[in-house]
């Protein structure tokens, strides 16, 4: 719990409201930390269908590196949908050229992440944590995005709160679409014509 307190104290200086929200454990947690053979932590929970893992039970860091290698990140503003225990976020922060990262995650999993690892290098300017379960403030924040952004999703975390993340993803698409269409350049206009042709 010492790690959680250290992280929350650091977070409090940046986002006191979020720190307050995380201080009592959020309801419906049920996640447990599990050590992988690589020495890193993963998290899982029991569901009626079986055990559900968030990161590789073998090597979560390697998994995050492979995940990043597959991402298309054309814009330096990035929205990360689901960070799990933080491995994908750390990969993004350390190995991409970014201006800002908006991290969307569910409160219970975010709190578990803060309990499991030192986030002092990730709680910093440019990285903004948008934490559920209420999607509305997150949607409002995304609707204020001023320029095009890249969307990355970490599937196991996304699927763990699928309804919540689908809603946020739709908001991301709507905002990105508005920004692209408003550019009125040949590329964005031609994509519109292309969709008309596909529809025929």
């Amino acid at each position, binding site marked *: 719990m010492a790690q959680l307190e250290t992280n929350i104290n650091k977070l409090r200086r940046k986002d006191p409201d979020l720190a307050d929200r995380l201080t009592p454990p959020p309801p419906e947690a049920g996640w447990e930390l599990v050590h992988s053979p690589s020495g890193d932590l993963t998290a899982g929970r029991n569901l009626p269908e079986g055990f559900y*893992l968030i990161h590789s039970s073998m090597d979560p860091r390697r998994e995050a590196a492979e995940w990043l290698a*597959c991402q*298309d990140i054309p814009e330096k503003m990035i929205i990360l949908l689901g960070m799990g225990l933080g491995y994908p976020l750390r990969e993004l922060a350390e190995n991409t050229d970014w201006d800002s990262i908006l991290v969307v995650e569910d409160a219970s999993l975010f709190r578990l992440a803060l309990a499991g690892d030192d986030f002092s290098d990730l709680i910093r300017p440019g990285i903004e944590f948008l934490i559920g379960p209420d999607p509305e403030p997150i949607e409002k924040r995304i609707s204020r995005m001023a320029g095009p952004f890249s969307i990355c999703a970490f599937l196991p975390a996304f699927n763990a709160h699928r309804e919540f993340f689908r809603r946020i993803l739709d908001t991301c698409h709507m905002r990105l*679409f508005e920004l692209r*269409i408003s550019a009125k350049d040949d590329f964005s206009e*031609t994509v519109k014509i292309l969709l008309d042709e596909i529809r025929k």
Partner: protein
Amino acid sequence: MKILIIRTHRLGDILQLTPLLPGLKKKYSGAEITWITGDNFAGILDDHPGIDELLAIPEREYRYLLADRPDRFPCVYNEMYDFCRLLGRRKFDLVINRQYEVGSLISFLAGARAVRGGSYSPERSFVMEDSASRELYQNVKSDRKGNRMNLADWSLLIAGLAPGCAPMNLPVTEADRIRAEELIAESERSAPIAAVQMGAGRSFRQWGTENYRKVIRTILERTNYRIVLLGTGEEKEAADSILGDPSLPQGRIVNLAGRTPLKTLRGVLEWCRVLITGDTGTMHMAAAVGTRVIAIFYGTAYPWETGPYGDGHLILYSRNQCAPCREPEKCGSGQKCRSAIKPDHVWRAFEIQEAISAGGTARSAGLGEDVDLYITAVREGTGQELIPFPDRSARPGNALRRPEVVPGNTVGEIAANLQKKKKDMIRSFYLAHSDAFFSEFSSYIDDLICLAGCLQAPDTAPDIRNAFESILPYIGSATAAMQSRDLVSLKDILQYRLDPFLQEIASPVQNELR
């Protein structure tokens, strides 16, 4: 040289482009070929050795979403925007567009240096830069009857290649063959097989179940052939009516309608000695795997354009002043052209095909006034010809050159394919395409079952059999993880438990490929 081919739908049209692959590789040494297709046809191209990269777009889903779900428009827009932007980064030297307007727009968005087959620019809208495309367009629009060139040859010409320079081609894997054998072995094994594909996409293209029934009856009564009925799930009922017909010899018909995914279908067709069909995608697939075709053409289907491509196929064509017609639904003659072709004509073609493949000759087609019989022959430089039968040039030398099926390292090939599938699945996982991940996993398990079957063979090395037995519990765990939608555990099992075993048995095949 980076080349992009665009064709997203219609099985037959996709297969008619396969001669491009060896043709382009021969013309441009070291060419890298990318192909964009619809995701429902990806399975037929994803292991084609002539394609370096296959990109699949969910075209059917997009069409539905764009028509019926306006709320999804931003999402589809962004996905296509990102897809085309990624294409742009690949910097294609040449695009061969055989998808008309959609392909033209994608070509523009990809920023290709040269486009053949129709291009687009905001200033000029849709244009055809190359003369072959313009000529084909004019031909189809105004003088279809004057056209004597197969669409496969048109595509070669549009790509800057000589008509007839390369065959239609589709690989058949060991797993396809094993699945085909499992299906076909439902009846007696030793006799040759004639496949019959009764349906076609639209009703006016269907020759009719009763006609096919008569042909099947004659073949069964006069030869030792077995019959395999092919078709989609929608055509199963018609096929069932034939299978259940007590007047037909029992035990010599297998009904595979609705039971052959595209990959299995190519294995089944390769197994068959001949396919009897109308103008269907299955017809083109048979031609692409080297199986002889007896094709029935009338009405809208025009054999010079879309006939089976290759040497030695037979085409029955009902001659008619108004053919090829554009609006068969409004036919004033009660589709006389369709009823002109009788079951006896097909039987006669079958006899001729048998005589030709046995190295003999058939002197007269004897089909009567309204129906012609043609044999196909492909010549480099001029492309496919339809030679009226009988004709001096339609001699046994034109019989189909069927590629020899060389028994390969079955176990190694399946293991190598499984490794490729694993890579695709892990990529789907990281790209958050969970539906794709699960559907790829089903196909992976199918192949794994196939592999398990192969390893039962008595000549399997004991160490490989033991190794396989040691991974069996992980296959069970993978299935359990799939049921609980636990993608991470599933990925871990593939990556850390199954893959090392597959690596071990696939290595000889991979070394050979290198």
